[in-house]
Structure formats: structure tokens, C-alpha cells
């Protein structure tokens, strides 16, 4: 539930209530959060403190000019993680370590990333540069980045010989350079020096999440300590807003002036952050970020591995969660088609306890679902074994970081040349994500041949009711449904021949 409250009063009526707030450890110096209210984003807060290195280019997570580094947990160590400061509430940083471009180095003592960017012409107007520097520094410090003088073929040049993954910069836009010098700067980076203070910090765990309750400017920000407390808080206030990565919520706050009386930060709730691979099922915590899931699964679910690089950008994936992706109920979310094809279940926890719902039954209408107002999505369950043949087709204008106009996920099993199992998830072609049931039925039991595919493709083209908008015409959307199965088939054939 979103609620645009009367904004009159604004900052002038700010009242500082609630307990003391843990300061942020900002560039190594404690910085109090006293002047932030629940709807102040981290970027505005940083800038109000005179740290104007991080810039606002869009206020919606698209440009990365606001990128800063936060030290996030990684097992019992930690990792410098680049995030969009424009999206997250400043208050959600309480007690954490934050580094901005100003904290990485100074003009007289440039950080290695800054040095490479400067000498290689990585900045022209310089407005995007502090953000690029932070995103690049995060990848510089990634502990499993290893030099690979001959990156794998078919890699499209998206990894440097130093192991740098270009996708780390997929959420940063530059209007001036054309990117080549920025790539060259990234690929020229060495490993951090032995005495690098930032690298050393990654050996330490992050400070524990602190219970927080702040009321200011007519709204409340709460960081509950347990799932039970979160469910209770949600039940109490019908218009309360759960905030996980805030990659969706933050956009609404900035662009649509969305305001909620209560924000409940669930991003660090242990109950929502498990990842277990069992014999029967893989359970994925709803508040794990997509980056964490990607690392944690390490290719264990190939269809998800195909999804991640196409989902937003690294910056966004460092915040975005599956709970949030389902929580928005958007018909163009990218995880639902994939999770539908994986025949996943959604685990919901409310005041009346826990229940599991097949994702196929979860959505009931445009941005509507079976989730009760007091329920929190706690996990996703993916049943095993997985279908062996999968694909995720995302149709969008831009390859990196764009919203789908159509998304199709396939999970198919073929035994003795006959389709034995088929699950197809669709996004962007109806008011909700949906399973292409008629097409699945047409496939199962049929021989896996070009003829079958051709007939089934026509069936698939008739599923859903695609609309026209600024992203794509309805004709194109329908055409993309029609070509997705033949494309999948062609890829399948190619892989078989290669094998």
C-alpha cells in the first residue's frame, strides 16, 4: 500500500523524536543521522553534509551518479558494495560503514581506481565520475576477482584480463566518454596492495544490525529485530511500507512523492536471509539481495543464473530482493517468469503463521496478489530436480539495465526426443505474470521437433493480451511471444550440436 500523505509541514515541522540514532561511519568519521527523516534518501543526506561528490543524475537508480560504497556482510567477512544512494533511506545506513569518492582518495593521493580513471581520459565533464569510481572500486575489491589473461571465448569482452567484470559498471551512465576509456581504466587495475586499508576492512564482519526506531516529519522508520516484530508492526499500521532494497520504494518516494506513515526495514532480518540447498528444494530468503543469491547459488540453478545479468544493473542487484520484486506485484518484473518456469512456491508469514502458495496462484490481478496486508514474503522455494533445458529471453531496448517489454522463461525436459515436462513463464503480456499453460500442454507428450515448435509457437503467440506503450507496440510484443519458442529451439539445437 502506498500513500501520498499531505506534505505540508515538510522539514520545517520536523520533530526529532525516538531514540538516539547510531551514527554512520562515513569515510572513517562518525556522522550523525539527526537531520534525516524516514523519507530522506542517503544521497540528499550526504550532500547536505557537504559531501557533494555523489551526484543526482536521475533520482531513480538508473544513472549511478549517486553510487557510494557500503560494507555489507559476506559470510563472516564483509565486502565493499556499491549501491545507489538516491534510493535507500539515509536512516537505513545507521551504524554502517560508508565510503564516498571523497573518502577513497584525494587529488594529491589518488586511489588506484581514481588514478586509472584520471590518466586514461575516463572523465570528461566529470559528473558521472565519482559514481563510476565507487562502482569500480567495489569490483576492484571483490575478493573472488582473479586475473585471467585469456578471458573465456564468447565472453564478449565483458571481463578484463584482471578479472574485472564489466557488468559491475552496468548501472552507471556516462553521456560524454562513450565508455571505452572507462573500460580501459577498469581493465588496467591491479590487485589491491598488501597494505590497502579498504581491502583489510573486508576481513572484518559488518557491524550488527541495530534496532532502530525514529520518528520525524510525521513518519516512522523502524528496524525490527525479528520477523515476529516485523509482522506485528505491519499488522498494526495498514499503510506501513516494508522496505528491503528500496530499489522500487525509493523511486516512488523520489519521483511520485510517495510517503508512508511507517517504514519497516527488513533488509537485515536474519529470518529472511537464509539460502539452503536441500535434496528436494532450494530455499531462498526473500531479503537476500540478488547479488547475494547469485554468489550463494553460484550457478546451482542455471535459469536464475541466466536471469541475474539481465536484471537491472549490478548497483540495483546489490539492493534488490526477490521479496521486493514479488512485493511490487508488477506484471513486468523479471523474476516471476523465471520463478514460474521453476514452479516455485512463495512462503508467506503473517500474524496467523506461515503458508506456502505456488507462485502460479499468487497473482490475482494488476498489482494484486493473495498476500494478506499483514503478510511478509519470507522465502521462495524452488523444487528439485530442475528441468535440464532452460532459457530466459528478455526483450528490451537496451541490453544492460532496461525493463522488459516481454520476458519469457522456459524450463523443459526431453526424454527420448519427447517433451516430458514444460513450464513457461511470461511477463509483460498481461496484467499479471503468467504461465503459458496452453502452450505447455501442447508441448508435453509431443516430439521435440521443428514442427512441434512451429505449432506451439502459434499457440504461445496467442497467450496473454499484450498492450502497446512507450516501450513496445502490442504487435511487437505478440511477435516476440511467437518467436521465443523457435529461438529457444534454435539455441537448443546449437547447444546439442556443440556437445
Amino acid at each position: 500500500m502506498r500513500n501520498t500523505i499531505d506534505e505540508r509541514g515538510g522539514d520545517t515541522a520536523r520533530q526529532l523524536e525516538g531514540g538516539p540514532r547510531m551514527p554512520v561511519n562515513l569515510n572513517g568519521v562518525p556522522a550523525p543521522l539527526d537531520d534525516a527523516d524516514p523519507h530522506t534518501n542517503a544521497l540528499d543526506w550526504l550532500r547536505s553534509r557537504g559531501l557533494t561528490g555523489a551526484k543526482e543524475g536521475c533520482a531513480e537508480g538508473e544513472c549511478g551518479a549517486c553510487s557510494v560504497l557500503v560494507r555489507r556482510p559476506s559470510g563472516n567477512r564483509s565486502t565493499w558494495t556499491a549501491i545507489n544512494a538516491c534510493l535507500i533511506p539515509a536512516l537505513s545506513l545507521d551504524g554502517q560503514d560508508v565510503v564516498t569518492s571523497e573518502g577513497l582518495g584525494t587529488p594529491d593521493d589518488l586511489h588506484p581506481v581514481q588514478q586509472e580513471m584520471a590518466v586514461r581520459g575516463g572523465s570528461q565533464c566529470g559528473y558521472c565520475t565519482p559514481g563510476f569510481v565507487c562502482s569500480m572500486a567495489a569490483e576492484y575489491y571483490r575478493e573472488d576477482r582473479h586475473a585471467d589473461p585469456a578471458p573465456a571465448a564468447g565472453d564478449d569482452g565483458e571481463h578484463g584480463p584482471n578479472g574485472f567484470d564489466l557488468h559491475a559498471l552496468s548501472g552507471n551512465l556516462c553521456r560524454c566518454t562513450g565508455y571505452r576509456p572507462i573500460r580501459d581504466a577498469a581493465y588496467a587495475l591491479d590487485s589491491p596492495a598488501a597494505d590497502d586499508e579498504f581491502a583489510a576492512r573486508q576481513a572484518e564482519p559488518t557491524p550488527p544490525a541495530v534496532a532502530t526506531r525514529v520518528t520525524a516529519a510525521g513518519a516512522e522508520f523502524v528496524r525490527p529485530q525479528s520477523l515476529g516484530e516485523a509482522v506485528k508492526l505491519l499488522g498494526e499500521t495498514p499503510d506501513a511500507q516494508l522496505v528491503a532494497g528500496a530499489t522500487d520504494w525509493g523511486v516512488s518516494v523520489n519521483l511520485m512523492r510517495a510517503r508512508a506513515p511507517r517504514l519497516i526495514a527488513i533488509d537485515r532480518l536474519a529470518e529472511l536471509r537464509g539460502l539452503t540447498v536441500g535434496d528436494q528444494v532450494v530455499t531462498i530468503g526473500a531479503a537476500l539481495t540478488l547479488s547475494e543469491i547469485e554468489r550463494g547459488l553460484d550457478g546451482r540453478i542455471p535459469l536464475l543464473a541466466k536471469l541475474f545479468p539481465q536484471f537491472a544493473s549490478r548497483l540495483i542487484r546489490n539492493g534488490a530482493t526477490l521479496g521486493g520484486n514479488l512485493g511490487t506485484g508488477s506484471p513486468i518484473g523479471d523474476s516471476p517468469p523465471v520463478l514460474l518456469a521453476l514452479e516455485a512456491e512463495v512462503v508467506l508469514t503473517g500474524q496467523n503463521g506461515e503458508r506456502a502458495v505456488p507462485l502460479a496462484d499468487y497473482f490475482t490481478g494488476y498489482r494484486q496478489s493473495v498476500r494478506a496486508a499483514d503478510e511478509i514474503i519470507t522465502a521462495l522455494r524452488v523444487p528439485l530436480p530442475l528441468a535440464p533445458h532452460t532459457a530466459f529471453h528478455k526483450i528490451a531496448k537496451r541490453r544492460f539495465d532496461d525493463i522488459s517489454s516481454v520476458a519469457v522463461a522456459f524450463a523443459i525436459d526431453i526424454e527420448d526426443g519427447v517433451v516430458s515436462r514444460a513450464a513457461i513463464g511470461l511477463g509483460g503480456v498481461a496484467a499479471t505474470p503468467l504461465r503459458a499453460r496452453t502452450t505447455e500442454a501442447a508441448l508435453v507428450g509431443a516430439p521435440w521437433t521443428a514442427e512441434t515448435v512451429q505449432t506451439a509457437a502459434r499457440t504461445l503467440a496467442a497467450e496473454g493480451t499484450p498492450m502497446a506503450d512507450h516501450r513496445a507496440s502490442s504487435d511487437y510484443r505478440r511477435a516476440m511471444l511467437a518467436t521465443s519458442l523457435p529461438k529457444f529451439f534454435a539455441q537448443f539445437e546449437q547447444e546439442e550440436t556443440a556437445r
Partner: protein
Amino acid sequence: MSNLSQRPANPVVGQAIPHEAASLHVTGRALYTDDLVQRTRDVLHAWPVQSPHAHAHVTGLRLDDALATPGVVRVLTADDVPGVNDAGVKHDEPLFPTEAMYVGHAICWVLAETLEAARAGAAAVEVDYAPLPALVTVREAIAAGSFQGAQPTLERGDIEAGFDSATMVFSGEFEFKGQEHFYLETHCALALVDENQQIFVQSSTQHPSETQEIVAHVLGLASHEVTVQCLRMGGGFGGKEMQPHGLAAIAALGATLTGRPVRLRLNRTLDMTMTGKRHGFHSDWRVAFDDDNRLVALDTTITADGGWSLDLSEPVLARALCHIENSYYIPNVRVNGRIAKSNKTSQTAFRGFGGPQGMAVIEDILGRCAPLLGIDAAELRHRNLYQKDQETPYGQPVEQADRLHRAWGQLTESGDLERRRAEIAEFNRTHSDRKRALAITPVKFGISFNLTAFNQGGALVLIYKDGSVLINHGGTEMGQGLHTKMLQVAATALGVPLSTVRLAPTRTDKVPNTSATAASSGADLNGGAVKNACEQLRERLATVASQHFGVHPSDVRIEAGRVSAIGSNADPLAWTDLVQRAYFQRVQLSAAGYYRTEGLHWDSAAMRGCPFKYFAHGVAATEVEVDGFTGAYRTRRVDIVHDVGDSLSPLVDIGQIEGGFVQGAGWLTLEELVWDESDRPTRGRLQTQAASTYKLPSFSEMPPDFRVALLEQAEEEGAVYGSKAVGEPPLMLAFSVREALRQAAAEFGRPGTSVPLAMPATPEAVFWAIEAARTGAFGDDLLVGETTLPPQPPADAPHMHPESERLAADAGV
């Protein structure tokens, strides 16, 4: 070799050095206008009340609720304007309008203690509107006969005779979209009232002098009462040439009325919905080829979609006319131009300034006609390139046409085009679902403002007693590396190390009456002026040194801060010693520099003359791969050979070429301005008004294999240290991307398939192009073998008379 172009020994120009502010950029220390707000006390924030209608009379304005909103200090309306209620030089842009002309038009502005409060206050302003019919598309405007400004015609030869002599003729229609600048830094102004009522405005502006002028006329002040400063911009691309003025004026008005500093920053949504963009164009055309596939005639009427006010549409149109033939010789030409008046943002300058739009027409024609002529598109283009000293349709000889041929040849070699074409053919033979293609396109772009008067620049160079040098010039820095080049020019001209020279922020109280930093002319004009000032100083210092060494001043050498003399055995002097001596001898250590581009003449009424100092040339080859299932594509490799003269700063120039290319590719393939053309209440609304819906090139659009070479032996006689302007021309090299996509789509059809391709060529557009190729339908907007006459202007069509030309005429110049 001219004095202007000659380089001394071991010059600092030509060295590949990083951007002058790079270490500030990377550490977040570089300040932009909005960063200054934190350093200013008691700032008020401004927020507009925007029209929800594309066209409506404003019949009532009630401010009570807004003024009662906590934090709101004042609402600015037309009644508050002491001077002229207008934001432009054409006096057709009321600052506070009584008629809303587009969705997003600012009706009035709220000032408040916080941004939150200003927004809340703006929401509380009640405006009554009486909606009027709105023209949203260029076609609607054409149908309604809604035009503004001049309707020039550029003509050469005998058009009818050309068509009569032709072997093959075609005609068609082509409409293409504009482009949002999307400078990463949105518009921003911070105004305050200084000592003795001096108005001080910090503005993200490419044209401080004009910002100053408009602020002064809105406030009813003289120019000397207003100072405008621009530290740097986070990108401009033409979008900050005209558009900052009104915003700066609002901030300045607020500051004078409240006595407090006023910050006006457009957030991205405001910026995209309020400010002008690259013009979309419409063109009706017919073209004729001879039996050798040479162009013999082009007859076209092009209509720029100007939006609600004139802004820079006339000069943009003039440049489109002057670039319609790109690099191709066409003996018989008629181009009619006109500017549609529509209910959209007022479209404005954007890198290339009409040049890209003009070239789009001919490149589209060649791309579509080549298969129908049965000739390879690259061969068709090559065959029609200008030969040395052939004249453009407006009568300027293309003196360096050989450079086009040289660049083409160099690229063919270095790009290994022959081998790659064979590889591509093999790939296409063995792949039915994916196709590749390689296209090569040239650029010839005229350098100088079309309007002669703008081709002047000024500088002020100061040497302090300790030997340090401070330079001021009229140009602004927006990432193009102008300041870097100016430091190099000054260090070269004075003979000192780069570290001796520092650059002061661009301010109107240092150098007056400057031209916009635009038309790629920044380095030419300001470089000429800086060089001129430095040479005056150097000459004075040489005289001082000559006395010391007992030689003639012309025998004094100043190099890398060491002063010596030919034919003298005396120890060299240090630069600082020389400066000290000069000071004690009471020699003036500051100089004002000035430069005007010689040899230009232009009759804008007749559209004839030599408006350009020279042309910049370049050639690009792009290879793409297209997916037949979806229309999605990848740029595989780009090779460019570009003519920057003798580069002042190679790292900067290569950056401009690469950045311009990718920005051009964005316009041609990805970036899509979608306006609501329906009859819903949201008619006229920009639907792609955010970064999430208006997609800029990102890393995925960077050519993974990107090879840029500067044309060798390219010294330019008529420009500072032999260099050439570089800001705009490379953008147009990106036509090679669109043409490669067209050719790749054609590979899905039978050989000789002509393919219509929408612009921008998004994956969807490419998909439809593939579908068309598969069916062989080359588009019902193309007529083969017959022609239709493009609409001709009425006999009384208004001529081109740029405002300042009229002023010049009045002044008897």
C-alpha cells in the same frame, strides 16, 4: 604556414594530457553549480507550477493556499517582473506565460525554505485553464500550416534539368525523431544579490554572456549590474546554450525580491519535460542518379519540428540545409526549409546543430536506394564523394576533399575491410537466424557559426609577480576539454610549463560579449584569443629579456620557463626572474586577447557564401550483428579515421570522437522521445521523461572493439596551432551504425532488398525492418522510377534574418 597555425619547438599543445580537472573529478572535489548550495547560507529553493495541458489559456491564478503552505516564502508571477517578461532573444518566450504552450510549461514559480516546501507550495497553487486545440506531431503542424520563423531555400543548378537527365529517380518521405541531451547534470542556477545590488548568478550555462543579457532585461538592469559565472557543466551538448537563461532569470528575480540566495535546479523530470531537445525533422524528397549511379539532383523540403517557440530553430535549420548533401557532390539541388510550430518543448541546439538532421536525409536516401540501383551502398557513397574544390550547394569550395578520400582509403586498409566483408558474407551464408553487416559512412562538417558575427572570441591573461599565470577566456567547460586545451595553448604561447598556468572560472566580468561555447568553435575562437593575449605578453617580455641579453627581441627564446638568447653567452634567465624584471621596469603584465575568424561571408537571405572557416572530415566503418528472432543487435566493431587537424590535445580529441560517436549512435538507434499523440487528457505529454524510459547508451552499447585514428598530415592552416574543431563532427560518424543495421536486416531478404528502417532503429524497429526484408516490402513511402514534387514554399515565404544580423544592419555594419 600562417602565424596562427605555426607551432614553436617542443610545444605543450599536442601532448596527450588528461583533462585539466581529472583529479578533481575522480575524487568528487570538482564543483558544479548545485554543489555550491551547501556553501551558501539561507538559500531559498524554487519549484515550478507546470501546465498539464499541451495548449491552454491561463485564465486564473490563485496563490493563497500556496502562500499559506509552511515554508513557502513567495510565489513569482508575471506581476513581479520589473523588466521584460521574456526568456529569449526573439521575444517569443514569455517567462511567465498567459498561454500554456506545452505540457510542463512553467506558469509560475514557488520559493520556499526547502525543496519539499516549494514542491508542496507548487501543488497548492490553483491555476484555471481554458484548453485549446494542440498540435503535437510535426505532421499535424504541417497539415495545419503552423510554421514559425524563416522559410529559407538553398538552391543550385537546374533542378528540373537534373531530373530530366537522370537514369533513375526515386521519391519518398522520411520522418525522424529528436534527442534529449541528457547531460548528466540537469539545469541549475544559484543567484544572489551581492554588494551594491550587483546580481551574481552562478549558472550551468554554455552562454554566460547571453544568460547575463537575459537576466538583465528581465530585471530591467544594465548588463554591468549582472555577473554570470560558470564553474563547469556536467555536460551541455547544446542544451545549455539558450535554455539556461530563463531559469537563471527566475533565480535572479527571486533573489532580488527576497534578498536571499535562490537555487533553481531542475530535477530530471522537470528538465526533460521543460527544456528543449534536438529537433525531429520531416522530409519529402526526390532524388536523381545518372547511369553511373552519380547523384544528379536532390529536391527536398525539410521541416524542423521547432516546438512552441523559435529559440535556435532558424540557425539549426540553416545548418541542416547546409549539410543536406553531407560529403557528396550533387550538381542540382533545391532544399526548402521550414520550422513547424507545435505544442512541445522549444527544440534547441544539440551537438551538430541541424547538421546531423540534414545528413540523415541523404544517408537514408542512399541506404534505401543503393539496393534498388543494384550497387553496393559503400560503393555508392564512395563514388559520390566530393572531389577537391568542387563547391557545396551554397558555393563554398570543399578545399580538402582529398582528406575524405584519404580517410576512406586509410580506413579501408586499417579496418581490414576487404577481409572482413568476406568473413561477414561467409557468416551470413552459414547462419540463418543471425546476420552481420558492415557499413561505411563519411562526414563533412562545416566549422564556424553560420552567423558571421558570432565568430569572435576574447581572453584576459594575467601574469603575477611570482611568475604564475592566470588565464580567463570566454569559453565554458562542459567536459569537452576546452580548458585543458586553453592551458596548453597558453603554456605554448608563453613558453612556460603547464604547471605555471592556471585557469579562472568563466565569468562575464572578465571577458565581455562572448559567443556561446558552441558550434565546436570553443578552441578555435578562445584559443585564438588566448594565444593573442599571450603573444602580446611574450613580446613585451622578450623586449625586457633582449635588454638583459643585449640581443634583438626576436632572438629571445622562452621555452619551458627558461629564457635564453641566440648569440648570447649569458646564462639563461628563469621565467620568474624575467617577470620580476619586467615588473620593476613597469612593463604591463596583463593583456586582453582577441580573435576573429577571417575570411567568412554569408548571405542568409540568399543562403549563399562561405560561412565556414574549414570543414572537418571523417569516415567510420561499423560492423553489427542482428538477431532475426527479436531484432536485437550488437555493434561488433567500429573503426574511425577522423580529421582533427594537428591535434591540440590528443587524449581530449579521441575522447570527443568516441563520445560523439556513441552519442550519435544513441540518437540513431536507441533513444526514443515518445510524445502522447492520443486524444486522451494526457495528449502532448512526454511519455519517455525519465532515465527508466528514455534509454541512453550504456556499457552495452560501447563498441567492444573501438579503433579511432586521427588523420595524419592534417594541419589546418587557418586555425590555432594547426588544429581543427572536434566537438560535433564525430557524432555524425554514427550513421554507419544505422546503415549497418539496415544492411544486416536486408540480409534476411533476397539480394538487392531495399529496407525501410525507422529512426531510432530500436530492436523493435530492426525487427520490422527484418520482416519487411523477408517479404521484400520496401515501404509504401518510397516511389521508384517516378517522383512527386515536394511541397514548395509560398512566394511570400519569410527570408532568414537572424536577429543579430538585423542589428548589424541597423548599426550600419
